[in-house]
């Protein structure tokens, strides 16, 4: 710890930032704590807003209050970090992390909690996927009565992997995330190039362009997810490719919904009798939307972070000394990619 820690009062002119990083003392920001409280409030109020499928408008004002708390905490955090130039990057002095950056270890410990969140979602998925019979198995067995809903597991892949066009948004998203993982390590590489080995203006442009590319790919990911969930798309007639005009329906318009206890799909019609099997798919749809939605929220969080990093890079703030910020954010972003590596095959393809 620096000798001048707390030995004068003017190094912290305002609790709202920006910090003076030059004196070598810790700068523990209260903003992440405030932001966490805001996120907790938001989730609690959102749960109240749609309690058991019923809309309750009394919670709406508190939703806006919680969003304001999150926004305020983020603004303060960004103001505090904008002045960070990498001059103070504490390293651990004891085992087992001796000489490892303290913040890097902190990011890894944060990723532990993320691992546990997704592990719980995956284990729940495995549990129900094995514990509930598949809808197509029930249909083929003939063990159902028309008009009486059968509780069964209808994986989203039944719709998503039914054709190349249906799978296109998810497949493009997979490539988008892998490319974004690559662009962010390229941003880090350019920020890390030794001073003097590259023109500073070239460094500035490369870093912010790679970060902006990562931002665009993340936005593409969420856009395609919205198309896949809610919007669908139109495939035009392209004669020389042998393509016929048709619509690709969204999961929403196909009736793949978390509250659907009377799901009717065209592939569950008995050709001999014309009878239609009706399925209760609440468990399978909930698992799909909660898991992929949680992942999507992480991508959204990444977009918020990338917006700030790209702006800071645009000001030319990143150099070998301060590049660690990109590295730490990159760890989070690669983790989001890692989760998708598992989500895509098991929720979209299988």
């Amino acid at each position, binding site marked *: 710890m620096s000798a001048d820690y707390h030995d004068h009062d003017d190094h912290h002119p305002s609790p709202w930032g920006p910090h003076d990083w030059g004196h070598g003392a810790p700068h523990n920001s209260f903003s992440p704590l405030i932001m966490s409280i805001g996120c907790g409030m938001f989730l609690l109020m959102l749960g109240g807003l749609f309690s058991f499928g019923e809309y309750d408008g009394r919670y709406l004002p508190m939703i806006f209050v919680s969003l304001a708390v999150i926004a305020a905490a983020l603004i303060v955090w960004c103001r505090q970090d904008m002045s960070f130039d990498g001059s103070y990057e504490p390293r651990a002095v004891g085992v087992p992390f001796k000489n490892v950056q303290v913040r890097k270890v902190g990011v890894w410990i944060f990723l532990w909690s993320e691992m546990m969140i997704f592990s719980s979602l995956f*284990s729940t998925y495995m*549990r129900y996927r094995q514990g509930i019979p598949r809808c197509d198995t029930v249909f083929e067995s003939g063990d159902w009565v028309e008009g009486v809903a059968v509780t069964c597991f209808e994986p989203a892949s039944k719709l998503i992997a039914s054709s190349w066009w249906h*799978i296109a948004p998810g497949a493009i998203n997979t490539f988008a995330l892998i490319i974004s993982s690559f662009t962010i390590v390229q941003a880090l590489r350019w920020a890390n190039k030794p001073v003097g080995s590259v023109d500073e203006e070239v460094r500035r442009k490369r870093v912010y362009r790679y970060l902006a590319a990562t931002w665009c790919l993340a936005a593409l990911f969420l856009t395609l997810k919205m198309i896949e969930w809610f919007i669908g798309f139109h495939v035009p007639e392209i004669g020389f490719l042998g393509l016929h005009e048709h619509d690709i329906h969204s999961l929403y318009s196909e009736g793949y919904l978390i509250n659907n206890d009377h799901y009717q799909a065209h592939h569950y019609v008995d050709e001999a009798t014309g009878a239609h099997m009706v399925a209760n798919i609440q468990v399978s749809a909930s698992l799909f939307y909660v898991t992929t939605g949680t992942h999507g929220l992480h991508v959204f969080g990444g977009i918020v972070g990338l917006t700030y990093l790209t702006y800071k890079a645009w000001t030319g703030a990143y150099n070998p000394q301060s590049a660690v910020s990109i590295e730490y954010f990159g760890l989070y972003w*690669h983790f989001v990619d890692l989760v998708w*590596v*598992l989500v895509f095959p098991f929720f979209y393809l299988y």
Partner: protein
Amino acid sequence: MSNTILGRDAYWMNFFGLMLLTLIEVAAVGADLSSAAEGFSMTERQLTLWILTVIAIPKFIMIAAIFMHLWGENDSGILTLTALFPAFFIIIMILFIGLTHPDASMGLPDWCRPGNYGL
């Protein structure tokens, strides 16, 4: 990171490898594997799951090792151990939630039922 793979830049090689593996994944789902599945005495769905699982493992390792710098840096060893620490809890969670089943106690395979191995 200044590591190389096969004499070329590690980031680029990792990127190309990941793209290739993802292409194989998507192709495996779209392709008709019914005849291949018969050869392995399994359903097409089971074969697809095997292919997807086998491909996901190297993809997972490639992203963690190269992009997350868990290979080739001074602090890679301790940070890899750090990253693996929750594995114990994850395994416990998968075993006790993910792989449980309503008829787990009755539906166990013979090799893990009492009475085998002279027990």
